[in-house]
């Protein structure tokens, strides 16, 4: 049992920390967001140079063979700096799905391009009615000749408007919320019948509503086993959840640091406000919450690829519950302790708070994951 990084992991941690420290502050971030795609292509190229974009898939697939722990290291630093590049959407989810489900030919065609930063992927899965239920897929896929026709709508597709290739889930068999009968397809965003309406999200990122109207794809566009995509989707989303937990922990770290700094410098009644016990105790509780969240993010990273699926569900959902609760407390209290300045667009705390809040709304909120956790730990009799 140890919680130390290996030498390579320590180097990765240092590299990403330094990069984020050098390239990110709230003003620079604003300029990246102002770009047409909502992030910095220049930084994306830097990540590619540093090997970050190939991190989560095998060397034989053109990547660097990192585990979820490496992803955690990257995402925690990205959280510290509130990075806007689509690492979660394109790498953890997009490349993750190709790496988990793709054929040798698909991996060869796609993953090296992803690693070099030339191709962006996005995962078009959620729908208006599905909320957080991963099996609730109504977009349809019908066989036509040797290929398929896709019809339907996908909602809040992270970075869907900058992607070159969408990974679209669609129902090829079964009824609306059945786990069996879901198939994934690789769909070029420029293909006929694909409509993409991009928009900013409240936390400074980008997403898109995607429409698919009689979109024709070839037989080799199927990613993974026809009708059998659900277990792969669940696995990839569990990895994404572990990554989000790490990002949230980085965010909490920064929020706690700036709040503590504010308590030591802001003066009222002639003294730094950190001299007041009510605020000291609140800050102490924020520290406790960050530590608990960090523990669970580590556990999630160590469990994101467990072959025992029930155990993976148990740990990942527990982590998301903890991050949800801790994040809400740290986020809300950091604004409260800052007072008026915390409410402003100009100051950094609000931006971190917004991202932390949207992380809770991503891929299952606290209630959703408490339920998923309890289904493992307290199965209904």
């Amino acid at each position, binding site marked *: *049992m*140890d*919680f*130390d*990084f*290996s030498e390579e*992991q320590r180097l990765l941690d240092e590299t990403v920390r330094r990069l984020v420290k050098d390239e990110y502050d709230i003003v620079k971030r604003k300029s990246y967001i102002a770009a047409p795609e909502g992030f910095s292509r220049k930084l994306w190229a830097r990540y590619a140079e540093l090997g970050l974009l190939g991190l989560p898939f095998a060397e034989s697939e053109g990547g660097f063979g990192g585990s979820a*722990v490496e992803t955690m290291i990257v995402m925690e630093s990205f959280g510290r700096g509130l990075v806007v590049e689509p690492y979660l959407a394109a790498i953890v989810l997009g490349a993750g799905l190709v790496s988990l489900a793709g054929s040798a030919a698909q991996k060869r065609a796609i993953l090296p391009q992803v690693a070099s930063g030339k191709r962006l992927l996005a995962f078009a899965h959620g729908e208006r009615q599905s909320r957080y239920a991963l099996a609730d897929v109504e977009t349809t896929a019908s066989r036509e000749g040797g290929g398929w026709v896709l019809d339907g709508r996908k909602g809040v597709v992270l970075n869907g408007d900058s992607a070159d290739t969408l990974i679209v889930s669609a129902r090829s068999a079964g009824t609306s919320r059945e786990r069996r009968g879901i198939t994934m397809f690789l769909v070029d965003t420029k293909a006929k019948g694909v409509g993409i309406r991009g928009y900013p999200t409240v936390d400074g990122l980008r997403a898109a509503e995607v429409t698919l109207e009689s979109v024709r794809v070839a037989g080799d566009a199927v990613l993974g086993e026809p009708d059998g995509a659900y277990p792969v989707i669940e696995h990839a989303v569990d990895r994404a959840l572990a990554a989000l937990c790490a990002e949230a922990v980085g965010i909490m770290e920064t929020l706690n640091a700036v709040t*503590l700094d504010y*308590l*030591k410098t802001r003066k009222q009644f002639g003294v730094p406000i*950190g*001299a007041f*016990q009510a605020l*000291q*105790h609140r*800050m*102490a*509780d924020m*520290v*406790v919450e960050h*530590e*608990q*969240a*960090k*523990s*669970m993010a*580590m*556990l999630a*990273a*160590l469990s994101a690829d467990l072959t025992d699926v029930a155990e993976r569900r148990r*740990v990942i959902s*527990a982590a998301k*519950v*903890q991050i949800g609760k801790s994040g809400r407390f740290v986020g809300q209290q950091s604004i409260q302790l800052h007072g008026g300045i915390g409410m402003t667009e100009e100051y950094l705390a609000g931006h971190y708070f917004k991202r932390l809040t949207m992380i809770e709304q991503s891929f299952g909120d606290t209630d959703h994951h*408490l*339920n998923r*956790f*309890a289904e493992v*730990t*307290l199965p*209904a*009799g």
Partner: protein
Amino acid sequence: MQLAYTTEEQAFREEVGSFIRDNLPADVRDKVLNGKTMGREDYLRWHRLLYERGWVAPHWPVEHGGAGWTAVQRHIFEDECAEAGAPPVIPFGTTMCGPVIIRFGNDWQKQYFLPKILSGEHVWCQGFSEPGSGSDLASLRTKAVREGDHYIVDGQKTWTTSAHFADWIFNLVRTDPAAKKQEGISFLLIDMKTPGITVRPIVTMDGSAEINEVFFDNVKVPAKNLVGEENKGWTYAKFLLGNERTGIARVGASKRELKKLKEIASNEREGGRPLAASPRFRDKIAALEVELMALEITNLRMIAAMRGGKGPGPESSILKLKGSDIQQRLAELVMEALGPYAMPFQREAMEAGWNEEPIGPDYAAFAAPHYFNNRKISIYGGSNEIQRNVIAKMMLGL
């Protein structure tokens, strides 16, 4: 980064587990698992077995009888003991007074007291809190006046756990009333049989009598019982309180209680179905289990950080805060699970040997008393408000 234990550590867990299985008396185990009243002899029977095995004070230096274990081994040991229903070793001798004597005591004290702490011949209690000195411990007023080769002790201690069956008490006493409050305190070892000591039990709201008031009226204590230097007692007390914090998360005991809670919630019925299947109750259990999972990892992270020989820092206040909250919530949910059968007050059912038919299920009698008794956890050992002060001052520099 990995969570698996080494082969040696796994073998060690196996060794501890089989020792407990082979040796823990069944009736003591039953008392612990069911929360029945524990007497001196219940604790000591297990204490002596651990002593014979060399495991009663594993954290002591090996030359004084410690086991030379790593922090991970200590955690495994505590975890196994808690889950198996072994009683805790009474901490006042092995965890509190012993390390102070080892670090600051004179040769006579080491030779006389340490073997008796280990063997269980001496059971200790802690004379710290006073009626006017709780969180502000350094304001204590029990005084010791030097007369020749003795001290004369007058005053009162309170909340003294185990004083009713202890042989010795380690006492903080004021030896210099003129000095600044922290600088006039000494650390004195007192035989509980000394004339002038009166112990009066304090019954807590759950009906149990674990704690006491201890009165000192003209008590004559040999000067050789002074630990270290006169008026340096506050330093020793702080050292002691630092030691008290290891194991403070009580993860093993809470895992055991969680298991019990789930069993009870599966057994109790609501609308013909197990209470554990009721979404509202199920979610409460699940939320608590998540907190406990996180605390277990936080605890392991701090244990791992101690491997370099570092002692537990102010970070252990995090463990106390979360650990106490979880223990209290567990007791709360067990009580809630009982519904109206939390109401019958069956004091006798908590005593060993009681074998009448219980009112309601056999686990009912303990539920409410435990809930009420567990409110102490966020008060003792530095209240949770004091723990937050420690985090704010020591960790955050506020």
